[in-house]
């Protein structure tokens, strides 16, 4: 059976008649064509498919698209704003928080939602927050550092909203955007 589903993904509307059984991750990847969200385990164990549904991290392979009809979805593709990387992206880059990159989008989406709740976390709190996201490459250490990097940067931005971290950020941009 098909159902009309309308989603806003990264601020852009998408709508389609889709089978009821279409998984949210397949809506995002196949209907919206946003392939940054990955599928790793199929059983809600690994978190590679994590996106934000109305700001809340969700494993998009364990939701049907119809369940989220009308929702605001955020994926990795929406993190960069106006050519500026999100602090979490910058953190993963600076701290070598990724290797094969497959778990990275889900890991970042989880971390962003976590940092909104807890802007100044301990390492243990970060480990707890990302415990629904499996990474096979990094051993998690650099991911924890990456999230701490982002936390610092987000706190700094909060404290001085108008002064973008000039030199370091620019250098990073030059390096990353290629």
């Amino acid at each position, binding site marked *: 059976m098909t159902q009309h589903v309308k989603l806003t993904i990264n601020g852009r509307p998408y709508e389609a008649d889709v089978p009821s059984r279409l998984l949210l991750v397949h809506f995002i990847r196949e209907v919206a064509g946003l392939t940054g969200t*990955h599928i*790793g385990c199929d059983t809600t164990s690994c978190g590679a498919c994590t996106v934000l549904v109305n700001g809340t991290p969700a494993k998009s392979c364990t939701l049907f698209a119809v369940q989220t009809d009308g929702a605001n979805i955020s994926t990795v*593709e929406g993190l960069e704003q106006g050519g500026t990387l999100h602090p979490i992206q910058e953190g993963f880059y600076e701290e070598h928080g990724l290797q094969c990159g497959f778990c990275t989008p889900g890991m970042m989406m989880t971390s962003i939602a976590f940092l909104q709740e807890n802007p100044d976390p301990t390492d243990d709190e970060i480990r707890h927050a990302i415990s629904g996201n499996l990474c096979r490459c990094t051993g998690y250490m650099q991911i924890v550092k990456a999230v701490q990097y982002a936390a610092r940067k987000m706190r700094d931005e909060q404290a001085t909203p108008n002064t973008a971290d000039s030199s370091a950020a620019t250098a990073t941009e030059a390096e990353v955007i290629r």
Partner: protein
Amino acid sequence: MTTDAAAIGGMGHSVKRKEDARFLRGKGRYIDDIKLPGMLYMDIVRSPYAHANIKSIDASKALALPGVLAVITGKDLDAAGLAWMPTLMSDKQMVLPVDRVVYQAQEVAAVVATERYIAADGVALVEVDYEPLPPVIDPFKALEPDAPLVRPDREAQTNHIWHWESGDKARTDQLFNEAEVTVKEHIYLPRIHVSSIETCGCVASFDKVSGKLTVYMTTQAPHAIRTVYSLVTGIQEHKIRIVSPDIGGGFGGKVPVYPGYVIASVASIQTGLPVKWIEDRSENLQADSFARDYHITAELAAKNDGTMQALRVKTLADHGAFDAAANPSKFPAGLFSIITGSYRLDAAHVEVDGVYTNKPSGGVAYRCSFRVTEAVHTIERMVDTLAQKLQRDPAAVRMQNFIQPDAFPYKSATGWEYDSGNYPAALQKAMEKIDYAGLRREQAEKRARGELMGIGISTFTEIVGAGPSHTFDILGIKMFDSCEIRVHPTGSAIVRIGVQTQGQGHETTFAQIVAEELGLPVENITVEHGDTDTAPYGLGTYASRSTPTAGAATAVAARKIRDKAKKLAGHLLEVSPDDVEWVDYHFQVKGVPGRSVTMKDIAFAAYTNFPPDLEAGLEAVDYYDPPNLTFPFGAYICVVDIDRGTGMVKIRRFVAVDDCGNIINPMIVDGQIHGGLTMGMAPALFEAITYDENGNMQQSNFMDYLLPTAMETPVWETDKTTTPSPHHPFGAKGVGESATVGAPPAIANAVVDALSHLGVTHLDIPITPWKVYQILQEHGAAES
């Protein structure tokens, strides 16, 4: 142009990774991200039985489903001569069975449909009539005379595959007969699965007009696959293009050729449309190749003063239904004979017997060089067993028996020539870093109070960089590797290599090698790989071989360019090339620092202003055949605490001192070691694949196969010593797998150490809480 070392970003710099730019934005291009016009989807029917005859396959209901275009069976493939394919170990393997299945979840048929969901529905509609046969799951039972035959297709009507041995049996036996002290343990290393977070898959696209087959594939070795494809199908090799796009982790699991790749290719040839096949996690866990399943009996002979003399090892290797291990051809058990480890031994003898069982193919790697983890685990456990028997400190026994730094190159008792090493220095560093003496004092105090803590050491020697063509080949293809460099007129370059990254950061590290050798900034160097139409022939990335082989080729190719550049420099500086020297990333007239040219100047000249006796251009290719393997090593110390009420083991500290020779990128090396340590801990404490008596795999998804999360993973404390490889062009050794190899025995040794006062001498991994608790209970040491 800069000649500032930091701006160049050559050897030893923690250059941030080039590949991150796309991954951080969700712009990576993994297999499932590839969508070609008109693409079809394939899904696979799999056997519920571990062993059964196939009486019939009825595809009519599936074919009646709108959107299903084809159902491919073994009979279809058989007609094309493709029902069987060769494995990388010179065995053969079913692509699709014609009359019988030999392991649970084996591919039985494939459904091709217009959509992924329809293909899945089609799979459920294919009716297969099976006649169950008794399976043989235990490799010891497989060798009994009345055991069910796994492979009646073979000439030899037995489940025994091969026998392989190494070392001097007579001398070893003699030393054992005369030994003052011997120790013996049975060690089982269970089946485990690499479980990269991306599963395997491909998009096969056959162009009927050109007759060219392009396959985008999750493979760690695209060139080898192309050659195998050509040999199997008869399609000329230039009409086959294998592209390995971004790979979401490999760890050895993406080396073999899986039936799905071949069936999808046939499906594309049949339909004339691109066909995508992506495994789900259960398929990946149940049917892709496995590591280990080694049943080892090890004995160590020594003098009463702790001097180790001889090692004797007998092993049964369960390879499942097909011998699909990716080993160098001459080594059926891989590099298992590195088993003498970091120690001087007068003699050793190692025997391995390969056995067929009704399980999927075993014997691939789990982030380790061919069978090295098994070898290291054995010797590192045996050294501890000896120390325990002699009531000596395990660190002291190691120090006493290490091959000494001045003994290199060292010929091991099984014939390997170790290139370099300094084992005492690494262990000393680890002991100081973790305060070994302090930990032993703490342990004694805690033991007196009834608390359980253990300290475990592993001082391993790896063997990587396969390998020298005189010894190493896969299906006859020598295991050299390659690099091609082209310097563009304006001073940037493209580097193409025969190895393939799966997260190791080749796009960055290989650019750094070239930056170092040519003095071009790393940001101006592009690294390309994974496409057999453009990359030079190479054997791929596994067994920590990329830096030792292709890395060496890259340095040598760059040096060829520098040799030519020197001539151009002489031309530009109007002196004889003999009067030009390479200093701080530029050429200068000897003794005249002011008169110099940069590589950028030279690159431009190579296309605009070259002397008449020189060809235009600035490029080079190198196929590097290493003279020997490299032998990275390390000293790991692990501290565990054990909960007496539950048997739970918690890693409190883990210090890893690694020596991989000269380092290209310290940041990336650290990352490789963190990941390796985590994948070493995983099988030590969590992961194992088991089968019930009917051959049903019991861990067929991530709910049951326990990959550690950030919560179970400790903070790794890493450090290094540097002992360059004397034969590698820039003294590197390879590092991707050292930690996976070195970590498990450190953890196992720590747990045994915590329980040693109860008389425990060995525990098989994974060390589950119930194994520990049972021991505590038996000895009245459990919390009551």
